[in-house]
């Protein structure tokens, strides 16, 4: 029943320091790679020079205007979006797993992402004329808001159902997820009949996920709703640690359990819903990133939340790099890449990690 590699335990402190130093460096590396690789190659030095010139800092690498244009208008917003979404999803996954007291809680598996997608699609298909009549600034926030509400409803529902039958029962949680994913699939199916061709394409985009919509506008639309949870999660680190002992025990060590639960449900729904609104359903990042980190640095949320955000950003940018270079000049939906890598990982988890004890 070894939950993690026992021999790293005496060195948990050291592993933690190393991991939390290496992750930012890795993120920088993936950012430079993502910025440089594509139809138009840009050397790392050139990337730095273009960025430097933006803030009036002249670096000794020369580049042409085309490269600057591609970097600033296309690749950079996509990278920013990738960092936001990867970080937001992975940190939300870590928080959700602590809240559900279960290392298998994943917004994709339990239906929270589908709920968000359903909210977004509904607004898009049914509310097209409505949103067009709104001022543009309000208009760009309408889809994220609908996605947030969709995610929130599902999170509350799953939490109620799962905790009604014993503390965070995994079976109930995953079964609820199956039901909600099926329901979301059915409703999406119905909507495809009333959707126009353009709407159909974006429905496909929502169900498989993509950073292809990575414009500065998308970054602006999602940044506040993802940054807010990312900044607030650390406040709940101690509470999440205590919650892993069960709700009553958390109360006994002085945690306001109800307030913590409400805050975490809203914050994770906000991050997941906003991610879904701009990039569709991207699975497995919220499951895989916190899991890998727990093996390296242990389950302490004081380090896990921030570390997961960094690792999630790295993984998503990496997956996006694969998604847009593997079949270039065409592009794979990123959900296919994360599922392609994440699903086998999930199966491996079920079979090995806890000796079949998870269910």
């Amino acid at each position, binding site marked *: *029943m*070894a*939950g*993690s590699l*026992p021999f790293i*335990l*005496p060195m*948990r402190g050291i592993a933690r320091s190393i991991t939390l130093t290496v992750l930012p460096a890795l993120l920088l590396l993936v950012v430079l790679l993502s910025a440089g690789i594509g139809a138009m190659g840009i050397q790392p030095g050139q990337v730095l020079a273009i960025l430097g010139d933006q803030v009036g800092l002249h670096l000794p690498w020369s580049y042409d205007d085309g490269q600057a244009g591609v970097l600033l208008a296309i690749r950079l917003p996509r990278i920013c979006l990738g960092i936001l979404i990867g970080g937001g999803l992975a940190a939300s996954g870590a928080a959700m797993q*602590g809240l559900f*007291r*279960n*290392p298998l809680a994943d917004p994709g598996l339990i239906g929270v992402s589908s709920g968000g997608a359903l909210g977004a699609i509904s607004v898009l298909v049914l509310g097209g004329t409505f949103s067009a009549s709104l001022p543009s600034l309000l208009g760009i926030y309408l889809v994220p808001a609908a996605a947030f509400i969709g995610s929130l409803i599902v999170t509350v529902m799953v939490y109620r159902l799962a905790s009604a039958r014993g*503390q965070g029962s995994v079976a109930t949680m995953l079964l609820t997820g199956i039901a909600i994913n099926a329901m979301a699939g059915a409703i999406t199916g119905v909507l495809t009949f009333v959707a126009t061709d353009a709407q159909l394409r974006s429905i496909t985009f929502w169900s498989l996920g993509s950073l292809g919509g990575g414009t500065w506008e998308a970054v602006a639309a999602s940044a506040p709703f993802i940054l807010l949870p990312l900044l607030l999660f650390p406040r709940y680190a*101690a509470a999440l*640690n*205590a919650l*892993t*002992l*069960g709700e*009553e*025990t958390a*109360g*006994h*060590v*002085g*945690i*306001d359990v109800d307030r913590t639960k409400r805050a975490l449900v809203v914050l994770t729904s906000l991050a997941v819903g906003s991610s879904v609104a701009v990039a569709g359903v991207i699975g497995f990042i919220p499951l895989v990133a916190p899991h890998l980190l*727990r093996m390296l640095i*242990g*389950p*302490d949320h*004081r380090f896990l939340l921030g570390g997961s955000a960094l690792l999630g950003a790295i993984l998503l940018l990496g997956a996006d790099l694969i998604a847009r270079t593997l079949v270039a000049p065409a592009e794979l939906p990123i959900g296919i890449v994360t599922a392609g890598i994440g699903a086998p990982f999930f199966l491996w988890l079920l079979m090995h990690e806890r000796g079949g004890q998870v269910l």
Partner: protein
Amino acid sequence: MTLHGESITVAIGSKKILDDVSITIGAGEVVAVIGPNGAGKSTLLKVLCGDFPPTQGYVRMNSHPLTSFPLAERARRRAVLPQHSLLSFAFTALEVTLMGRTPHAHGGFRPTDYEIAGAALAEADASHLESRTYTTLSGGERQRVHLARVLAQIWDAPASEGSYLLLDEPLTGLDLSHQHHSLAVARRFAARGTGVLTILHDLNLAAQYADRIVVLWQGRTAACGPPTDVLRPDLIQDVFGLSTTVLPHPELDCPLVVAGISAVAMRTGS
């Protein structure tokens, strides 16, 4: 300085789980609650620690209503060891113990918190488990780590302000020597001024370690007092339906309960 429950009644629908039970845990005192399964022992403990409000009656800590203390304030004065603890994450035993310091930490643990966690692990005879992962520990070892956690929680509570330790069947899964060890720890905390309430099943352990015994039966207080007054064959017969002989303990100043002939007959089915 007392933790006091007055006329506690808990009803679920028309069924009374607890019926007009009053209990006081004074500073420096070990009170054992005994009684058959379903007598309402755990419910009483949950009411006393504020997990759920009684249908009637009230709980006061140090003469103030329990609910008037903010949660963290409450947690700095009283620690609760639950009957079962859930934990499916691979924290180390030290990290679990540190969670007991949560109400004292403001934005991070101080070196003192680590020292206290270490000392609490030693007190619970679990120092050697410090860097083991909780999920790899045996049932008894887990129970000792949780004991260390609740000890760490009220470790430095000033005696003058009244601190309390509520233990719900703290001996579950412990071997014989650790059963005595855990109750001796409770006695040491009482000697420093902590009020201890512990739910026990072993009448002899209750006789040996408790200052007073409260017997719960069908949601009511059947008896309450020093072990010698409470542990009488007729009461044990009434409450537990078991025939016993009660002798003076050969070495200690407390009664010794021995199951009688009819109990043995019941066991062998003859």
